[in-house]
C-alpha cells in the first residue's frame, strides 16, 4: 500500500490559509452582529420617535374633541349648541360624520349629525364605543370596525352632561398613506404600520405604507397612548439605517480575509518550499562532503597500510636474508653431527638432532614465506617431478608422531612446469599446515594424478576442519587460527600457484577435515627433463 506524502511546506501553507480564513470569518461574524445590533437599535429609536409624534397628534385630536364637548356643555348641552361649536371647530372631511349622541337611551340615539348622514341610532361596535366613552372622564376612546361596506374608525368623548357623548366616525383606507411617506419625507426610509390596538392585528390596522401586513423582517414596535387606549406602531427599514457600507462590511472583511489568506498561503508555500529546497541542498552538500571525507580517510588509511606493509616487507627481507645464512650453517652442521653420531653410534642423541632439524625446517619455511610476501618473485620454471619433490619435502618436514602420511601417486605422472624452490615452498606449507590441523594425530593423504591439461595435487587432513566463513578467509595475508604462525603460508601459497597459472581451492567441514586442491600446468612434452 502506497501513501501519498504531502510536503511539509504545503501543509504549513495550508495551516496559514486556514488560520487566517478562520480569523476573517470570526471577525466578519462579529462585525455583522455589531451592525445588526446597531441597525436594530436605530430602528427601535425611530419607532419610539414615531410613537412620540403620534402621541402628540392624538393629544391634539383629543383636545379638539374636548373643546367641542366643552363648548357644547357651556352653550346648553343641546343639539344647537353642538352644531354651533362643531361648525367652528371641526372641518368636515369627505365621508366623515360628527355626531352628538345620547347614551341615555337604548339603543344610543344620535341627537345631531354633521357631515355624512348616519342612521338615527348607533348599532354594534359604535354603540359599544359610545357607551364605553360615557364611563370615562375627560378621555377619548377609539374603535375600528366595519360599517356596512366601509372600514371606519370611531372616536368618542363624553360631554359631561347626562348621557351625551361626542362621536366622530371617519372612513379608513390604510393603504392610502402609502405615497404620503415616500420621497423626501421624514422617515422615508421606513415602512410603517399603525394599529388601533396593542397588537399587530389586521382588523385594527389604521394605516400602512406597505402592501404587506404584518411587516416582515427586522421589525421594531412602539406603543403609543391614545386617550384611554393603547395603539401600536410597527416599522421596518426599506434600506439599512446604518448604511449599505456598514451592512456589507462583514462581506468585505470575509472576502478580504480570504484574499489575504490565499496570498499569505502562497507566500508561505513559496518561502517554505525555498527553505526546504535550501535545506535539502545543504543536506546533499553535507552528505557529499562527508562522503569525500570518508573516501579521503580511506585513501589515507590505504596509503598508511601500504607504507606499513612496505616497511614490514623491507624489514622482513632484511631479517629473512640475514636468517637464511645462519640457518644454512646450522643445517650443514646438523648434517655433519648426524654423520659423526652415526659413525660413533651416538643414537641417543639422534632424537635431539632430529628435533633441532625439524625446528630449523620450520624456521626456514617461515623465512621463505616472509621473503616471498615481502618481495614476490616471478617463477623461473623448469620441468619438476612432483614425486621427487614430495620425497624431499617429506624428508624436510617428516610427520610428527601420531600422524601418518599416505601417498597416492599415479605412476608415470607428467612433470609440472614450475619454479622448483617456489613449488617446494607450496608443498611445505600445505604439508605442515595439515600436520598442524591435527594436534591429536591423524592421517594426511597426498594425491597426485593427471588432470586435463596438467596435474592435480590434493592434500587432505583428518583434522579439526573449519566452517565456510573461515575457509573463505584462509588465503588472506595475516589470517591465522593457530597459536603459532604469522598467517602468511597459505597467502604465499596462493600467490605462487596463481603466478604459475594454476589454481588452488579448499573444501572443509568442521570435525571432518580439510582438503586443499592444487592444479598445475604440465611441462610441455619434449622439454628437458
Amino acid at each position: 500500500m502506497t501513501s501519498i506524502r504531502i510536503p511539509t511546506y504545503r501543509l504549513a501553507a495550508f495551516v496559514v490559509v486556514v488560520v487566517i480564513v478562520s480569523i476573517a470569518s470570526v471577525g466578519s461574524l462579529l462585525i455583522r452582529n455589531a451592525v445588526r445590533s446597531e441597525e436594530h437599535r436605530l430602528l427601535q429609536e425611530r419607532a419610539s420617535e414615531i410613537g412620540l409624534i403620534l402621541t402628540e397628534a392624538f393629544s391634539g385630536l383629543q383636545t379638539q374633541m374636548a373643546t367641542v364637548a366643552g363648548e357644547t356643555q357651556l352653550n346648553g348641552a343641546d343639539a344647537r349648541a353642538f352644531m354651533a361649536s362643531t361648525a367652528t371647530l371641526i372641518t368636515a372631511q369627505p365621508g366623515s360624520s360628527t355626531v352628538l349622541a345620547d347614551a341615555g337611551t337604548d339603543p344610543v340615539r344620535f341627537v345631531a349629525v354633521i357631515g355624512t348622514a348616519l342612521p338615527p341610532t348607533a348599532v354594534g361596535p359604535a354603540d359599544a364605543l359610545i357607551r364605553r366613552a360615557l364611563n370615562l372622564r375627560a378621555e377619548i376612546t377609539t374603535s375600528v370596525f366595519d360599517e356596512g361596506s366601509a372600514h371606519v374608525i370611531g372616536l368618542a368623548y363624553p360631554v359631561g352632561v347626562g348621557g351625551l357623548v361626542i362621536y366622530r366616525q371617519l372612513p379608513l383606507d390604510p393603504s392610502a398613506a402609502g405615497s404620503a411617506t415616500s420621497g423626501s419625507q421624514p422617515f422615508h426610509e421606513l415602512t410603517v404600520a399603525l394599529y388601533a390596538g396593542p397588537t399587530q392585528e389586521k382588523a385594527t390596522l389604521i394605516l400602512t405604507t406597505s402592501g404587506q401586513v404584518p411587516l416582515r423582517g427586522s421589525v421594531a414596535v412602539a406603543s403609543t397612548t391614545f386617550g384611554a387606549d393603547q395603539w401600536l406602531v410597527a416599522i421596518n427599514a426599506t434600506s439599512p439605517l446604518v448604511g449599505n457600507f456598514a451592512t456589507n462590511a462583514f462581506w468585505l472583511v470575509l472576502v478580504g480575509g480570504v484574499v489575504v489568506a490565499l496570498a499569505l498561503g502562497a507566500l508561505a508555500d513559496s518561502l517554505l518550499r525555498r527553505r526546504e529546497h535550501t535545506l535539502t541542498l545543504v543536506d546533499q552538500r553535507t552528505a557529499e562532503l562527508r562522503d569525500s571525507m570518508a573516501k579521503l580517510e580511506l585513501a589515507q588509511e590505504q596509503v598508511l597500510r601500504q607504507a606499513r606493509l612496505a616497511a614490514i616487507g623491507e624489514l622482513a627481507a632484511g631479517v629473512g636474508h640475514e636468517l637464511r645464512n645462519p640457518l644454512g650453517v646450522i643445517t650443514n652442521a646438523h648434517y655433519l653431527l648426524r654423520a659423526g653420531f652415526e659413525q660413533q653410534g651416538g643414537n641417543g642423541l639422534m632424537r635431539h638432532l632430529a628435533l633441532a632439524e625439524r625446528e630449523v625446517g620450520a624456521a626456514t619455511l617461515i623465512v621463505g614465506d616472509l621473503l616471498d610476501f615481502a618481495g614476490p618473485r616471478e617463477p623461473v620454471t623448469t620441468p619438476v617431478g612432483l614425486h621427487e619433490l614430495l620425497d624431499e619435502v617429506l624428508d624436510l618436514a617428516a610427520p610428527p608422531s601420531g600422524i601418518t602420511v599416505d601417498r597416492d601417486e599415479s605412476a608415470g605422472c607428467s612433470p609440472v612446469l614450475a619454479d622448483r624452490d617456489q613449488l617446494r615452498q607450496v608443498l611445505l606449507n600445505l604439508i605442515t599446515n595439515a600436520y598442524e590441523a591435527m594436534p591429536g594425530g591423524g592421517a594426511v593423504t597426498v594425491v597426485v594424478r593427471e588432470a586435463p591439461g596438467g596435474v592435480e595435487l590434493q592434500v587432505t587432513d583428518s583434522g579439526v576442519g573449519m566452517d565456510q566463513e573461515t575457509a573463505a578467509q584462509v588465503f588472506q595475508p595475516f589470517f591465522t587460527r593457530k597459536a603459532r604462525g604469522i598467517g602468511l603460508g597459505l597467502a604465499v601459497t596462493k600467490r605462487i600457484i596463481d603466478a604459475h597459472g594454476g589454481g588452488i581451492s579448499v573444501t572443509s567441514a568442521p570435525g571432518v577435515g580439510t582438503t586443499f586442491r592444487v592444479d598445475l600446468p604440465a611441462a610441455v612434452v619434449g622439454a628437458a627433463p
Partner: protein
Amino acid sequence: MKPTVLVKQTVLVVDDAAGMRQTLVDILEAAGYSVSIAVDGGAALALARGERFDVILMDIQMPVLTGVEVLAALDHPPPQIVLMTAYALEEQMGKARDHQAFAILQKPFQIARLLHVVAEAAAPCDGNGYRPGLG
C-alpha cells in the same frame, strides 16, 4: 657417481661467511672431494684463473666481486659453477642464467640435494662442455 679415491675431483668453495665455508668444506671432503676455499669473489677469480677446478660452489652476495660477476668473468666452462644465495635479486638470477650457471641453490639447502647437484656438475661433460643446469 662417486669419485674414485685416486683421482679426487676438485671443488672451490667461495663464501664470505666462515661458518658456511667450514661446514661445506667438511661435507664435501667427507664426500670425497678435494676442496679449496676463497673468502670473496676477487680471491675466487684469481684462484680459478690460476688453477683448474671441476666445480666452483659460490655464494652470490659477497664483497669485492659478487658470485654472478665472477661467473661472468669466467665465461667459458669448465669449471661448472653452482651458485648459492640466501635471497637473490631478480636481476642477479637472470644474469646467472644468462651466463649459464649450472644451478642456483637457495640457502638453507638439503645436503643430499647439494651433493647430488655437485656430483652432476662434476660428472664428465659432453663435447661442447656444457649441459643445462638442474634448476
